């Protein structure tokens, strides 16, 4: 691969993968609010 193509590819893919991982981890580790939310599996009572 030529240098420009390699740089282009590595930068693009690294940026995209990093942002994707960052947002997904943020979703995983953001604590749910104490009040009831949209997600039924968080509920205490069986639906």
């Amino acid at each position: 691969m030529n240098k420009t193509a390699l740089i282009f590819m590595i930068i693009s893919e690294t940026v995209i993968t990093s942002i994707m991982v960052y947002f997904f981890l943020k979703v995983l580790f953001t604590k749910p609010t104490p009040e009831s939310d949209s997600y039924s599996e968080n509920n205490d009572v069986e639906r």
Partner: protein
Amino acid sequence: MSSSTESWGTRVGLILAMAGNAVGLGNFLRFPVQAVQNGGGAFIIPYFVCFLLLGIPLLFIEWSIGRYGGQFGYHTTPFTFQKMGTRRFWLYLGTFGIFSNIAIASYYCYIESWTLSYVFHSVTGTFQGMSQFQVAEFFNTYTDIFVSTTGIPFEAVFFFLLCLGINSWILSKGLSGGVEKAAKIIMPLLIFFGIFLAIKGITLIAGHQGAVNDGTVGLNFLWTPKYDSLWSPKVWLAAAGQIFFTLSLGQGSVQCFASYVKKKDDIALNAMSAGWMNEFVEVVLGSAIIIPISIGYLGIDKVIELTSAGGLGLGFRTMPFLFQNWGPILAAIAGLAFFGLLFFAGITSSLAMGTPYMSFLRDEFNWSRKKSAWFFGGSVLILGLPTVLFFQQGVLDEYDYWAGSVALVLFALIETILFSWVFGIKKGWKEITSGADIKVPGIYKFIIKWVTPLMLLIVFAGSLIRPANDEWNKLSFNGWELHKESIIGQIMQTGIGPNKDYCAGEFYAENDGVVDSMYVKDNRNYIRVSNGKGQQSSIKYDNNDKLVVEMGSIVKTGDIIYTGKVINRVFFIDFARMLLLSVFMVNVGFIYVAYKRRKREGTI
């Protein structure tokens, strides 16, 4: 009126379902081909700019509209639009949010059924020992429903029905029990298959297993920037178009999924997470599969020629042949992984297309989940059958153009104006940031109000008046020749050629050239007219027709090829358009009835 008790099971489930909605066949077949045709690595620059200025704002807008409507029990765009815009015409403009889904699903499920069938054929070894021509011909035979490749009568219809059955069954299980559960299983599998094929693609070594190039030659070709292409409006329009397709924007499915999120819950981080997951699948995995593998075996020139017909051709006519180079077992595994990957990508999107239609029926007519899911399946079957029966007459392309391209841009423009200007950016911004788990950059307030609508207007206007050969410098007040795929060009049917009548007594040549082949295949007669520069057309005729030309005849566009009873392509094109228009009007009718019911019951 709404009696819906649907909800998402988990936040991760919602994000995977939303990412699954976005990740589709286009991520693997359309994106790499668009990149090849529009400047290689430099395509990524307009693509990213469009993602930041068009994709992300529209994701915020659609998630916000959805969650806003959900507060009032509206899970589809018509009534949400009316609530936001207050005037009655917004209700009917919201029809696009239901219409596009059903219209796109009707041909998308057919393409999805090809992937299912190709998984079957890959695993059973149908492609073993076939030449490249035979594999390409297999696709033509498959889409000719009167010829069976397996002995199953009407095979294409059988797989289409199977695919619709799977979709309807999953939909009938509901949001968390069906769509979300499917996404949680499918998305990790899809990424696994994608990584397997990407590794196979980029580790190809010239001289091994029949490869003529290393896998990195394809990557080099794809990622080498051609900066001059940055000045071409064609490249920018292609990048904007790709962003629409890839994020499933302007369709109504994002709004529907988001309508099941509560007012105080985050949408900003959810939108970003799902959106960037789609970008990962598209740019990182999508660019490392079909182009490196096909260039590895066929060389750059051949792949450029093949991509001129689009990604579907490369995927279905060529890939099964290339996998054969890896030996029978690996070829079967690769076929399973590749077409399985496409099937997974397709089904998560088609499930998202089914949800708005089901939600509308459940909200407005109190239908049960099961009844609305199977009604959706039945509607897709009726509307999709013409694409199956008349695929080779261009009905699928017609659906794709109007429902899968034009309607999306138009609807995105409508919803952006509604959100930013009618509902108001102040209230809109509050909707986006309410409950947000991330800080949304303030610049997006300006972008959503000014830049996104302006870009959408440019994209729509550009699509209306696109010049022939994409020669934008030829635009002038004295007029210019329109591209046959411009909206006006399509309406005026500029690309139809000499066979303009629905029915005729003669069939005319559609390109200059020489009759260089006459053959019989599957009991059908064909002649081929080639001009020696890659342009060729295969013309099918019946035994009762009388050929006017013979082998070696030199023909000019408009010369008579044969006489007999001819039903021209233009008939099927207009038929498809009338069908789509009728579906739109039927949906408007449904919405009118629902409005009257709500009015009577005092729920609006």
